[in-house]
């Protein structure tokens, strides 16, 4: 394992802001399931160093924003090396690469080589490349076209009636009221 020897003395930004960036990076790298704390600390400090340089050039953004951006750039470079033979867009590269690292068992098997471009085990790179997954098999398209059902005369009349009633809600409810009141009226006349 390489010695942890990183000089971190940001020229810009407050101590509080850099502490917040540190805490965020710690959470961020933990979300990669990197349980090797030493490697995590190495990564945090390396990222913060790069973020400090970037912050010196652009102090309008927070140290946290710079830190995450640097982590993203480091990831892209690392994945770019692994998937150099595949023609992937940036979004595809990041998505495929992250997923590939998980499916290859990277967080448990090779945590110390995460984002380490210079020391990349061949078996890790191969495992990540072969972990590309698709959610469905190759399509074999078929036509499934509904055939008309000859519903006969009654549906034609009914459709016409329903269509007319549907277009005129007042008419529809009038018909309903007429039916209901006719029944009630009939019952009343019977009882009377």
């Amino acid at each position, binding site marked *: 394992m390489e010695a942890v020897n990183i000089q971190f003395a940001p020229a810009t930004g407050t101590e509080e802001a850099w502490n*917040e960036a540190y805490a*965020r990076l710690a*959470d*961020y790298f*933990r*979300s*990669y*399931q990197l349980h090797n704390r030493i490697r995590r600390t190495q990564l945090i400090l390396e990222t913060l160093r790069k973020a400090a340089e970037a912050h010196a050039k652009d102090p309008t953004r*927070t140290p*946290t*924003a710079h830190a*995450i*951006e640097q982590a*993203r750039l480091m990831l892209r470079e690392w994945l770019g090396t692994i998937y150099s033979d595949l023609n992937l867009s940036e*979004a*595809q590269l*990041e*998505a*495929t*690469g*992250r*997923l590939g*690292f*998980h*499916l290859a068992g990277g967080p448990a098997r090779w945590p110390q080589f995460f984002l380490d471009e210079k020391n990349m085990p061949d078996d890790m790179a191969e495992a990540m490349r072969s972990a590309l*997954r698709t*959610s*469905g*098999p190759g*399509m*074999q*398209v*078929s*036509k*499934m*076209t*509904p*055939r*008309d*059902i*000859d*519903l*006969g005369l*009654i*549906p*034609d009349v*009914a*459709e016409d009636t*329903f*269509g007319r*009633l*549907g277009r005129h809600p007042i008419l*529809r409810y009038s018909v*309903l009221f007429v039916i209901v009141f006719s029944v009630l009226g009939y*019952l009343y006349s*019977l*009882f009377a």
Partner: protein
Amino acid sequence: MSAPIGSQTANIAMTAGMPPKRISRTRRATFFSLVGLGTIVGAWLSFIFLSENGMRIAEWALLLVFIPLYYQLNVGFWTALFGVWLMNRPKPDPLNLWLTLNAEDYEQPITASTAIVMPVFNEDVTRVFEGLRSIYLSLEATGQSKNFDFFILSDSDKASQWIEEETAWLELCRQLNAFGRIFYRKRRKQINRKSGNVSDFCRRWGRRYRYMVVLDADSLMSGALLTSMVRIMEKNPGIGIVQTFPKQIAADTLLGRVMQFAQALYGPPFMAGLDYWQCGEANFWGHNAILRLAPFIEHCALPPLPANAPFGGHILSHDFVEAALMRKAGYAVRLLPTTRGSYEEGPPTLVDMLKRDRRWCQGNIQHLWLVFAKGWHPMSRVNFLHGILSYVSSLLWFFFLVLATYLAATPTAHQQPQAILAEQILLGLTAMLIFLPKTVILLDEVITGRLFKPLKLRLLTFVSSLLDTVVFTLMAPVLMIFHSRFVIYTLIGRSVNWVTQRRKIDGGLNWSEILFTFASVTLLGLAWAALGWFVSREFLIWISPILFSLVVSILVAALVSGARSGRRLGFFLTPEEYDPPTVLKTMQQNLEEIKDRVQLPPELERHYGLMQVCLDPYVNGLHVSLLRRRRTIDVSRSYLDEIGHRLITQGPQTLSAQELKALMHDTDTVTNLHYRLWSAADHELAAFWSIAIRQYNLASTSPFAHTLAKQELE
């Protein structure tokens, strides 16, 4: 008729599996003669009684609604009796599909490719994938799983649900080493609901497979039954659909347990009886069935019905129509009598049951369009009519009671001995039609021990059967009122929404829902009782069992929806509870394990999938990988930026389901959200995200294991 794909099996007649016409005709002639005779006798006795002093209009109307009701009663009666007879006769039914397989067939390897598809719509992700795991493992145990593929066909429109399905799929594939065997497909637009979902699968991948087994989200099937179904299809190229009998399982409320008990006890004879007279023109119930894909794709696409929903439009109860279309294409639709291996879950509460019935009712009423369409097999028309009658009969029963109330208010003296005798015979006959099937089935169980061998359990079954009679007697009038309403709602144009079916009660009873749903029924019961009091005391006594059920409907709904289900006392026990099959045991053990997982605050749990896709680099990667690349997006970039900003600064609760869905459909937005959230300063984040960032890493050791049990294969 084009050659069915399954015809490769050597030396098998193309029509194998289609019952000979001679047998079908003889059986139907016998069955419908008895049904017709019973109906005519009932109608005739009723006429004699009513016409003693001449027939008034109300009496004609009463007779008119009485006839279809009595017909339905006769159909149930004779179906059950034929079923009991078939189950007890020494020689097995020659049409029984199991007889088409011999010992050698079971030794042959299965070469036919089969897709097992499970359409889901916002279902409990854990239940869906643990169920699938159990089916997969059960199939693996048969040693014949090589040519089976699984498809989860998602129509879920809730963002969190969608992400959880994706993560569960990936984790299940990883745990089972089943990449390339279990597939996940999410539809962007849910055209034509479930039937559209399955059709979409058929269009994309249907040609890869010879058969398709359709499951529901709560289905469970054993590997042994699945392989047998494929073997039956291979041996019978004339069959288009084989429908199994899905038994209800895993109920934890009184209603659920009573239903699953009743189904276990009375279901098999009814299935046998249906198989007796339906022969090759049985129905498809939409799930736990196997379909021959080539004719299904060619002949069973569903056209829309004339007019708009609810009476027309997209066909809701698609399964009946697909069965009719399959039969119209020349293929048999068969029932497979099964007692083990095919399972489903039922609604836990009365309210859930009614919600489901509302959908089914609308779907069945739509079939009115189809009854008189050209080209159907006559039995398909009968099936449509029976489906319609199953709900319309409630309205007819309601009319019957209203007319009976009126006739009681305007009585005419019945003095002729012939009329009084007719009345008494009719009462006795009706009681026989209602109670004899149940009695015969119960006696059959007590004598043969088909469900349980120990005598104690048979006696408990006997007592449980008496108790379920009480529960069903209390529920029947309430169901009548609601089904009548549903029929009227459909006829006046009130459509139903597509909602997720609830399978379990979450927490305790929802009293406000029960009160809101059943208060009107109670009031109707009280008003009717008051009317009866003034009309005729004798009539009130006669109708009191029905009115009592209406008056106490709130209490009944609460009672049957509760968790006190008689399990401790051994009531309503089913074979699946007493000795769970392996496929069920595996699922239940895994579901138990999930209950012990670390829970996050409720707000985070509610949006767990969304939180994961935004924060977790692997889940984010998975989701973006699974999204289809699109050159154009449906909505503008500025709109996505605006709602994305709102998501970060105000939290997911401020976004509608549509907005969340729009965000999740765009690859760039999903990728950027991940970095924007992690880059934002604490004060820029909504409280939801501040908590989520701090707590997310504590929740699970693996981002994909939140919804699944950890059962790694060795």
